[in-house]
C-alpha cells in the first residue's frame, strides 16, 4: 500500500471500473481458506444443531440449568448478539445522518453483521424456551378465546422489539444494496445475473430513482436509530424490570446500549481486519478508516467504562445488602476470574487504542478487537450468572458453569453467524461500490476545489464551471449532497 493513502480515507484516484472489478473479484472464486473457514463454521453449527436436538428431546436439564440458574449462557449469548447488531446501525445510520464519509467503505459488512447477529440472537430465546413449540404465544395473535400475552412482561417487549429490529435492519441492508445490485447485474452472467436482476428491483440509476432512494435510505436511517436504542433498552429491561440484585439497575438501558455499541465496534474491527486481509481490500479498508473506527471504539469504551463505574458505585453507596453482596461476590466469588477478565478486556485493553502506532498495526488491532469482544461477551455472562448464583435466598445459592450441550450451542452460534457472513460476502458486495465511488468523487472534488482555490485565488467562478462538467457516470449519484 502506498504512503499516500495512509492519511487519507481513500485514494480518490481509484478508477470506478477498478472499484467494480475489485469488489466483484471478492465475490468470485472462493479460495481454499474460504472453504476451510466454511468447514469450521459448518462443523460448529452442526454440533450446535445436534446439541439442540438433544436438548429439545430431553428438556432444558441438558443445558445443565438448575433452580437458581434458570437462565444462563443462552440469555448472555442472546444479549451479546443483540449488542453486536448495534454496530451496523451505528455505522450506517448514525454516521450517515451526520455525514461521516469514512463509513462508506465499511458500512455494508457492518450492516450485514447487524442482520446476521440479529438472526443469531433470535435463536436464543427459542433455544432457551422450555416449550419452544408454543413460542407464538408471546405474540398478540388473534384468538377467539381472548387470550393475550402479558403486555407487562419485558419478554413480550423483546419479541416485538427484536422482530421489528430484525425486519427493519434487513430492509435497511437490502435497500442500501440496490444500486450495487444493479452494478452486479450489469457485470455478471448466468444465475447471478438473474438473481441480481430481481434484487435490484429494476434499478436504472435515473434521477427519480436516486432521489427516492436517498429519501428512503435517510428515512430508514432515522427510523432505525431510535429503534436500535430502544431495542437494547428493552433487552436491558429483561433484567432491569426484575427485582433481582445486580439486575434491578436504573442505568441499565444506557449501559446496555453503550455495551452494545462497544461490542459492535469491536466486531467491526475484527471483521475489518479479516476482510482487508483475505480480500486484499487495503485500498478500500484503509488504515485511516481503521483509525477512525478505533477512535470511535475508544470513545464508546470510555462511555461504557463510565457507566460501569457508576453502576458499581451506585451499588456500593446504595447500601442495598443484596446488591452489594452480588457485587462483592462478582469481584471475589467463584466468578471472580471471569469478572476481572471483563474488567481487564473492557476497561483496560481499550487504552491501547490511544497509541497511533498500535492503531495502525493490523495484527495488534485484530488481537485487541478479539479481546474487546471477549470482554463484552463475559460482561453479559457477568450480568446473568452472578446474580442468579447469589440472589436473595442464600439457601438457593449455587455456581453454574454450564453443560457441554450449552457450550456447544453457544459456540455453534458463532459458526452459524460465520456461515451467514461467509455466504454473504460471496453473494453480495461487502464493500458498497456506489458509495465508495461517491466517496472518491467527493474527495476528488474536494481536492480539485482546493487546487482550484490555490490556482485561482482571485477567481472563484471557474469552480462552478468545473462542477458542471463533472458529468454523470452510470451508477453515480447526483450531486445534490455536494
Amino acid at each position, binding site marked *: 500500500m502506498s504512503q499516500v493513502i495512509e492519511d487519507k480515507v481513500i485514494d480518490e484516484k481509484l478508477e470506478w471500473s477498478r472499484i467494480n472489478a475489485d469488489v466483484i473479484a471478492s465475490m468470485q472464486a472462493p479460495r481454499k481458506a474460504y472453504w476451510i473457514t466454511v468447514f469450521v463454521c459448518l462443523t460448529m453449527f452442526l454440533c450446535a444443531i445436534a446439541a439442540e436436538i438433544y436438548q429439545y428431546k430431553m428438556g432444558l436439564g441438558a443445558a445443565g440449568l438448575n433452580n*437458581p440458574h434458570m437462565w444462563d449462557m443462552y440469555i448472555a449469548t442472546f444479549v451479546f448478539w443483540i449488542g453486536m447488531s448495534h454496530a451496523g446501525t451505528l455505522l450506517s445510520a448514525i454516521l450517515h445522518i451526520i455525514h461521516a464519509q469514512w463509513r462508506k467503505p465499511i458500512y455494508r459488512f457492518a450492516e450485514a453483521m447487524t442482520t446476521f447477529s440479529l438472526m443469531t440472537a433470535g435463536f436464543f430465546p427459542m433455544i432457551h424456551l422450555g416449550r419452544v413449540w408454543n413460542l407464538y404465544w408471546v405474540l398478540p395473535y388473534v384468538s377467539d378465546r381472548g387470550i393475550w400475552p402479558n403486555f407487562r412482561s419485558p419478554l413480550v417487549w423483546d419479541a416485538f422489539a427484536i422482530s421489528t429490529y430484525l425486519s427493519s435492519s434487513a430492509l435497511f441492508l437490502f435497500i442500501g444494496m440496490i444500486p450495487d445490485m444493479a452494478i452486479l447485474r450489469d457485470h455478471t452472467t448466468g444465475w447471478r445475473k438473474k438473481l441480481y436482476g430481481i434484487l435490484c428491483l429494476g434499478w436504472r440509476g435515473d434521477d427519480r430513482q436516486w432521489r427516492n432512494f436517498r429519501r428512503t435510505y435517510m428515512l430508514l436511517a432515522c427510523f432505525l436509530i431510535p429503534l436500535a436504542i430502544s431495542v437494547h433498552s428493552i433487552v436491558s429491561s429483561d433484567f432491569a424490570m426484575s427485582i433481582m440484585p445486580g439486575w434491578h439497575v436504573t442505568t441499565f438501558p444506557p449501559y446496555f446500549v453503550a455495551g452494545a455499541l462497544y461490542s459492535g465496534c469491536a466486531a467491526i474491527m475484527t471483521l475489518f481486519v479479516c476482510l482487508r486481509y483475505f480480500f486484499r481490500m487495503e485500498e478500500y479498508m484503509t488504515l485511516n478508516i481503521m483509525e477512525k473506527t478505533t477512535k470511535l471504539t475508544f470513545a464508546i469504551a470510555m462511555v461504557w467504562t463510565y457507566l460501569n463505574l457508576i453502576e458499581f458505585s451506585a451499588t456500593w453507596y446504595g447500601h442495598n*445488602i443484596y446488591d452489594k*453482596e452480588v457485587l462483592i461476590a462478582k469481584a471475589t466469588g467463584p466468578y471472580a476470574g471471569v469478572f476481572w477478565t471483563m474488567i481487564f478486556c473492557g476497561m483496560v485493553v481499550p487504552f491501547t487504542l490511544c497509541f497511533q502506532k498500535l492503531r495502525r498495526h493490523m495484527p495488534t488491532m485484530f488481537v485487541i478487537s478479539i479481546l474487546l469482544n471477549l470482554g463484552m461477551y463475559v460482561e453479559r455472562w457477568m450480568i446473568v450468572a452472578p446474580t442468579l448464583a447469589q440472589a436473595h*435466598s*442464600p*439457601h*438457593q*445459592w*449455587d455456581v453454574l458453569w454450564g453443560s457441554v450441550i450449552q457450550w456447544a450451542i453457544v459456540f455453534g452460534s458463532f459458526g452459524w453467524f460465520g456461515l451467514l457472513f461467509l455466504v454473504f460476502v460471496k453473494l453480495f458486495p461487502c464493500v458498497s461500490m456506489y458509495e465508495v465511488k461517491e466517496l472518491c468523487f467527493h474527495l476528488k472534488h474536494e481536492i480539485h476545489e482546493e487546487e482550484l482555490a490555490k490556482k485561482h485565488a482571485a477567481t472563484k467562478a471557474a469552480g462552478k464551471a468545473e462542477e458542471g462538467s463533472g458529468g454523470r457516470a452510470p451508477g453515480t449519484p447526483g450531486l445534490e449532497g455536494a
Partner: protein
Amino acid sequence: MSVKVNRRKFLKMLGWGGAGTALTGCDLPTTVTLEEGKEEVVSYLMPEEYAIPGIGVWYASTCTQCEAGCGLHGRVREGRVLKVEGNPDSPVNHGKSCMMGQSTVQSHYNPDRITSPMMRKGSTLQSVSWDEAMSALTSKIGPDSGVKGDRVGMITGTVSGHQAVIIDELLAQVGSKNHYVHEVINTSVWSSVCRDMLGDEMPKLNYDKAGVILSFGADFLGTWISPVHNMGEYAKFRKGARGSLIQVEPKMTLTGGNADLWIPAKPGTEGALALGIANFIIERGWNAVDVPSSIAKTLNQYTLTAVEKVTGVPVNKIKRIASMLTERAPSLVIAGASTENHENGYDAVASVMLLNLIMGNIGKTIEASAKFPEKALRAKQGNTKDLLLLAKALKDNKLDVLFTYNTNPAFTAPAVLQVSEGLSSVGFKVAFSMFPDETTLQADLVLPIHSGMEDWGTHVPAYQPDTSSVLSLQQPLMEPIHKETRGFGDIMLSMLKLRNKNFGDFPDYYSYLQTAVANMPADVTGSVEGASKDIWSNVLQKGIVKAKASANALTPKLVDMKFKVKHDNSGYPMHLVPSARLGLWDGRHANIPWLQEFPDQIAKVVWGSWAELHPKKASELGVKNGDYVRVTSASGSIEAQVYIHKGIHPDAVSVPMGQGHDEFGRYAKGRGVNPLKILNPLMERRTGELATHATRVKVTNAHKHEKLVHLGGSETQVGRKFVKTISVDQLRRTEGEA
C-alpha cells in the same frame, strides 16, 4: 405420557358396606364408567354408596412403617389408595403423620415388590406357584415333616395384636420357643431400666407438663418410641408454659437440632454427667425426694470437676442444668440410643432415671401407662439381644427352619456376627416379604405378602399415650395390586390349619380377625358403641378400639449403679455413632424413592451415606465437605463422604443407618454404606443388648472427592433474618405467659 393409570380397579372388599366415611367431595359424577374386565360401558346410575368416581373416600387403617402404630386415613379413589393422612381419632398421632407414614403409599406401590412366590432351586430363586410353595412349606413344617420344635425359629420385627397371637400360636403348635424379635432402633435398655426402677416398661411421658426436658440422646422428635405423638406433645410443651429443652448427645439428632441448649458429651459418658448433676443437686439440697445415704455416697465421687474431666461438659453448664431442673420443676429426664447402646448403657440410663426420682418427676411427668387388657395382644418389642441370640443359634447350627418376617437381620447385623453366613447353615429359610431384601434373597422359600395397605391386622402400640389403651385396626385400603401376593395372616392361618382343626372355621384371616375383634371382652370393646354385631363395622369406621385401662401406679425403686467409663486406647481414638433418622429408619425404607430424595433433617444429604465430623477433626484430617474418609473399626471399614458441622463431638464420627444395601430394589441397592456392618460385637453388660454406639474407630482421609449431594447452597443465613430467633424473655414480655 407413558404412565398407564389403572383407574378402573374398583373395590371389591367384602364387608365394606357403609364402613367408609366420605370426608371429602368433588363435582358430582357425570361420567359413565367401565368395570374392570368387562367390555361394555355400564352406566353408573346406581353406584355403590361409597364408590363414586371422582370422589375420594377415606378409610381408617394403621401405619405399619414403624412400631409406633399411628392411625391412618387412606384416601381411596377409583379403587386406588392415593394418599394417607393421620387418623384424628387415634390418640397416638391425633390426625398427624410423619414422612414415613406419608410414604406408605410408595412402599405399597413400590415397583420392586415381590410378585410371586419363589423357591430356591439349585442356587437361584425361581418363581413357583402358591400350590408348590405351600406344599413345600407343608412338607417342611407340616405335622408329618418330623421337624423338631426347638429347631424351628422365627425372627420378626416388633409385632403386636392378632399378628403376635397368631405367630405365638404357630410356634406353640410347632413346639418352638425361638421367637426372635429384632429391631435396631429400639428402647429396650430404657424399657429395662423403667421396668426395674418404675415397675412399668413403657411409662407414659408427659412432655407438656415438664418445665424442662433434659434428654440424654433420646431423639424423641425423630426416632424415639413414638415420634409423631412426641412431636404433638412437644408442640404443647413449647406452646404452654414454654418449657426448655436440653439435649446431651454426641451427634446432633433432630431433637438436638430443636433444643434450646445442645451439649455434646463425650460418647459413653452420659451416665457420669447425669450422676454429676444428681450429685450437685443433692449437695445443694435441691432434691425433692430424699436419697438413701448409700446412693449419696456413691454419688460423692462425681464432683463437678471430675465430671467435667470425664464428660468434657464444662462445670458451669452442669451447674446450670442442675439449677434449671430445680427451678423449672417438674422436669422430665429421658435417655435414648446414644446413652443406652453402650456397654454401660443400663447404668447410664439408670443414672438418668435417678434424676427423675430425686427431682420428684415420677407421677408428674412420668406416669404409669395404660396397658392393653388382653396381654397376648400387647406389643412384643424388638431389640438387638435377640439378634445376638439368633446369631449364636446360627453359629451353633441350632436351627433347621427359620421364618423371617418384617425384619432384615442380614442387613442390620454387624458383619462379625456372620448372620448372613450363618443363614446358609439353616436348612429351610422361609421369608415372608414384600421386597427382595438381603435376608429375603437368602431364603429358600419366599412368600410374597400383602403390603400394609392390602392386609388386615390389628396393632397395639407399645407406647400407650392415652389414659385408655388403644388397639388400632389395619384394614386394606384397596385390592392387592399384585395377584400373587397373600396376607401374612392368611399364610399363617393356613399353616395353623395343618395342625389345629379349630382354625378350620375361619376361611381367612379377615374372618378370624372379625370374629376375634367382635368377641373381645366388654372391658376392651366398651368404648365402641353399638351392639356386638355393630362393633366390627364401628371399629372399621373409627379404626381404633379404646380399651379400659388397668390403672397401676408407678413404684419407684433405686437400683445399683456401677457406672463406669471404659477407656480404650487400642488405636481407635474415635467413637462411631450409627445414627438413626426419621425417614430411612434402620434401612427398611431405603427402597422408597421419596425418602431417599428427602434430605436428612440435619445434614441435608440425599441419596447416599455420609460421615459427620466436627470442623476441628476435619481440619486435623485435612478434609472438607465431600471428601471421602475411611472409617475403620476392629471389625471392618467403610468409606463415606464427609459432612462437617458443629453439631457433633470432636471425638465422634457419625454415619447414618439406612443405606448400604446390597439388594432391596432399584432405589436402595448399591447406595452408600451401612455403619452397622463395622460394629464390634460388644454387649450392654446388664441387658445383653448389642452396644451399637460402643464401637471405637479411626478415621483416615481417603483422598477422594466428589460433590456432596445435599440440599441448600449456603449453610448460614448470611446475616439475613429468615429464621428470626427471640429469647424466652422477649416472648414473655410480648405474649405473656402461655
